[in-house]
C-alpha cells in the first residue's frame, strides 16, 4: 500500500495509518481462522464474516474513501455477496441429491479434524463470503451517502 502525497490528507493521522497497516492483516487472518474452525471452536460463518468485513472497514476508516475503491469497488462487493449466496444455495440444492433439500451430502469425516463435518465448512465459507460482502457493501454505500450535501441530487 504505497501512500503518495495526496493520499495523506485523506483518512486519519499518520500514526493511525501505520498501525492500521500492521493490524489489518492480523484482523483478516483472525476472521479467516474463525470461519475455517467454525465447526470445531466457537464462532462460525457469521462471526468470521463480520470480522473480515471489519478488517476492510478498518482499512477504509484509516485511509479514507478513495482507498476504499482501490481495495474493492462497490459493484465488486455486491457481486462478492451474491457469489456467496449462489454458493450457499448450490450447497443447499446439492442436498437434493442426498434425498432432501439440505442434507449433508459429504462424508462426516472423523471428529476433531479440520476437514470433518461434511458440508458444514463449505457452508461456513459461503456464509463468510456473503456476510463480509454484504456488510462491506452496506458500509461503502453509507460512506458514499455524504449527508452534508443539503439537497439530495
Amino acid at each position, binding site marked *: 500500500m504505497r501512500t503518495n502525497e495526496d493520499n495523506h490528507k485523506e483518512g486519519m493521522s499518520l500514526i493511525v495509518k501505520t498501525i492500521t497497516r500492521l493490524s489489518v492483516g492480523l484482523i483478516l487472518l483472525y476472521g479467516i481462522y474463525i470461519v475455517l474452525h467454525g465447526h470445531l471452536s466457537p464462532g462460525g460463518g457469521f462471526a468470521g464474516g463480520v470480522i473480515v468485513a471489519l478488517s476492510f472497514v478498518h482499512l477504509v*476508516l484509516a485511509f479514507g474513501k478513495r482507498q476504499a475503491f482501490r481495495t474493492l469497488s462497490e459493484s465488486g462487493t455486491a457481486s462478492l455477496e451474491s457469489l456467496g449466496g449462489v454458493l450457499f444455495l448450490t450447497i443447499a440444492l446439492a442436498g437434493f441429491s442426498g434425498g432432501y*433439500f439440505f442434507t449433508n451430502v459429504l462424508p462426516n469425516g472423523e471428529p*476433531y479434524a479440520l476437514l470433518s463435518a461434511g458440508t458444514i465448512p463449505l457452508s461456513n465459507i459461503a456464509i463468510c463470503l456473503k456476510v463480509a460482502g*454484504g456488510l462491506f457493501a452496506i458500509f461503502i454505500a453509507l460512506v458514499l451517502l455524504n449527508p452534508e450535501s443539503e439537497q439530495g441530487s
Partner: protein
Amino acid sequence: MIALYAILVVMIIGAIIAIEARDLLSAVIAVGTVGLGISLVALVAKAPDVAITQLVVEIISVVILIRATIRIGLPRSTHGSKPLLGVVALVFGITVLVIGAMAFAEIPPLGAPHMRVSETYVAEGLEGTGAVNIVTAILLDFRGYDTLGEATVLFAAAMGVLAVARPAGRRKTETEPNHANK
C-alpha cells in the same frame, strides 16, 4: 449468578442513558455498552458462539450508527419526545410487564430448561453431522434452512441499502410523467 444481575442492571442504566441523553454521540456509545453487556451475559451463561458474534456485530453497528451522527452539521442535542405516544408506550410497557410477570411463573425457572428436543442435538450431534461445535451443527445442518433465510435477510438489507443510497430514484431525462407518455 450475582454477576448476571450486576451486568443486567448496568445494561438497564445504559439503556436509560441512551434514550434520555441529550447528546446523540453519548447515546450511541451508551447503546454500545448495552450490546457489549449482552456478550458479557452470554459468556456468563456459557454461550461462547453468541458472545463472539454479539461482540463483533455490536462493533459494526456502533460504527454505522456513529457514521450517521458524526458528520452531520446538526446541533448534537436532541429535544423532547412525543407526549401522546409516550403515554401509549408506557401503557404498553406496564401491561407487558404485568402479564409477563404472571407468565414467567409458568415457564421453567432460570437454569433448568427442559431440553426435550435439544437432547437429540447433544446426543446425536457428533455422529449425525460430525461437527464438534453443536451450535454450528444446529445452525448449518439440523436447521440449515433457517440460516439460508438468515443470509437472505442480510442480502435483502444490503440490496435495500444500495437501492436507497443511489443518487436519483426516477429517471429525470427520459420520461416526464405528466404528459409525454411512453
